């Protein structure tokens, strides 16, 4: 065995031990972060779960849901989320990944605009951009205040509530930009719908 194979062999042995050391360190790191999370921030660390009036966990404050009937048609008594390429299952997460000229994307935007306009009884031009575009994650929990606004009348009618009452709830669940300049103003759809259900009860 010459000197260079010997030193290569030595480097290999050092490398194996080094990798084992760093693996052990990262495992400890992962467990310590988990411990801190579970002890100090258990709600966030476990997915920000939200409960209904009966105390059953019905989702996460951070994950969007589909408010659809068994056939996949939107339920008029609930505010609707943005389109989701993934279908809100939670077992995966993706956007449509269609390019700006993709014929299917063009068709889906046209279809969404017509559907949202008809469903809410508004003019097609009144449908905001987030109502016709799929989010990046397929789990966007938010809609824009503009999309919430065109849904108010339809939800109020379906539930037999005053327009003003629903508008007030929407306002309560509308958050401005983080720190005033990060992102767009948002309405959390699941939390808004939960609040609506509680009104009824």
């Amino acid at each position: 065995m010459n000197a260079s194979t010997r030193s290569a062999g030595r480097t290999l042995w050092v490398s194996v031990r080094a990798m084992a050391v760093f693996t052990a360190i990262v495992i400890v790191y992962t467990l310590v972060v988990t411990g801190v999370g579970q002890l100090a921030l258990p709600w966030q660390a476990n997915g920000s779960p939200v409960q209904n009036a009966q105390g059953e966990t019905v989702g996460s404050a951070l994950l969007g849901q589909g408010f659809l009937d068994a056939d996949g048609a939107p339920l008029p008594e609930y505010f609707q989320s943005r389109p989701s390429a993934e279908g809100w299952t939670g077992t995966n997460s993706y956007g449509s990944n269609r390019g700006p000229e993709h014929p299917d994307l063009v068709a889906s935007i046209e279809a969404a605009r017509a559907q949202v306009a008809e469903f809410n009884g508004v003019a097609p031009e009144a449908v905001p951009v987030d109502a016709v575009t799929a989010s990046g994650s397929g789990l966007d929990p938010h809609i824009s205040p503009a999309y919430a606004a065109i849904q108010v009348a339809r939800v109020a009618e379906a539930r037999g509530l005053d327009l003003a009452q629903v508008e007030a709830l929407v306002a309560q669940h509308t958050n401005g930009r983080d720190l005033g300049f990060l992102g767009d103003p948002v309405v959390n759809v699941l939390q808004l719908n939960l609040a609506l259900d509680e009104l009824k009860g």
Partner: protein
Amino acid sequence: MDWLIAGAGLLAVAVLLAALTRPFGDYIAWVYTSGKDWRVERGLYRVMGVDPRAEQTWQAYLRGVLVFSAVGVLIVYLLQRLQQWLPYSLGLTAPSEHLSFNTAISFVTNTNWQSYYPEQTLGYTVQFAALTVQNFVSGAVGIAVAVALIRGFAYRRSGTIGNFWVDLTRGTLRILLPIAFLSAIVLMIGGVIQNFNGFTELSTIAGGTQALPGGPVASQEAIKLLGTNGGGFFNANSAHPFENPAGWTSLFQILLMLVIPFSLPRAFGRIVGDHRQGTAILVAMSILFVASFAAMTAFELAGSGTAPQLAGGAMEGKEVRFGIPGSTLFSTASTITSTGAVNAMHDSYTALGGMMAMINMMLGELAPGGVGSGLYGMLVIAIIAVFIAGLLVGRTPEYLGKKIGARQIKLASLYILVTPILVLVGTALSFAVPGVRDDVTTTTIWNQGSPHGFSEILYAFTSAANNNGSAFAGITAATPWMDTALGVAMLLGRFVPIVLVLALAGSLAQQDKVPATAGTLPTHRPMFIGLLIGTILIVAALTYFPVLALGPLAEGLM
């Protein structure tokens, strides 16, 4: 209004970085120059069997980098192939051979290209005991190589360039680990999850079902960004609300991506004993960053293209909580470093907005680039720049008192050829080899029969060769050809430049310093900053204009 928001976001990042990079850059310099080992480090050196005081030649340093990385590839490959027997595998079986090969290389090379849907492919053990480990050590390797090159400039008549094992250990223990730990806690406060719950099935209020995903996400998320790795725990990456729940966490993630790369010029200036040199590099990086961000934001806010025009804006693939400026700032930071994380789907960007992501990578990811790789790439460009300036005035070029001779120029020239060759050859072969072409155009590409489909493949090879890891994700990449070709591109795109950089470091360390004369080009003045930027732009433009014309330019200007 949108521009005001975009400007405020950029300003916030700039102010925070301005406050951080000085002290942090000085700290980094101290980490790699301090003569003292921590007690825990001495323990680790004993376990590894290395003498921390023994300096290495560039060849020995390189051997450490290569063998250590090879061991990493092997372990990540094996852990994936053995997945069904690992704890917390969530009932998942082993990924295919070609996918495991691709993923192993991807995480060891700091690329974090993902040909798979993480939620449906990898259990928690592979994620934290294989991938997260590489997120730490591949970042530490990058910084180590950059520091070795800095030493090449700082040392005189030295046969050695430092000790790889010490640089690796200190980078991990003193820089990455403490910041990642604190950042993981900050992210959890924002709502990033950290548990071992698996999927929790629940009934939604409309009577449907949803699975709440679990996992040790925050611990991986922090180092994913800090080490400019970019591999998401979830498929949607930082667009997933459990990885990036809010506008402010997104800003925090952007800061994590940028803080080490933007601090390294300060560390460089400190180690070579002239802060003005570091500042010149920092300014060049900053100018490119701001220009690139402005261009991408302009294209996305303009929202050209059939679908964005029809929808009333380029919101396809973007989240409301980030908006357009919050998405483009993240995309710019991610592709102009070697991170490749996304908080919006690049494939659905406007043609020219998506092109900016590609251009950021094609520039060589230098502004500020990946952890370590950004700085060493920039120093190679500096060598090319002084060489060109030297040609113009007919003098032997020098940089930081080191003569730039034939050997240095050969190494630097080879360096800037590596990734373009990988990108162009990989893309060309995908469409030129008959059997491969059918597979690529019918299986891999989702946007078929359009320039956008070509862009998807071009993006993939650009991302792999530059070790970025982001994607025009409307492709099926888990095919034998794509997994293998991209795997090879990642491997060569990472390690061939490292070989050249360490050879350069060795050749520079051997030289004595020559005193500056009246004929020496000052490398801290605005003119040199202009030269640096000009060199980067000209090299990239000459190399990539034709392929950009076939893809995003054809699509965007049609």
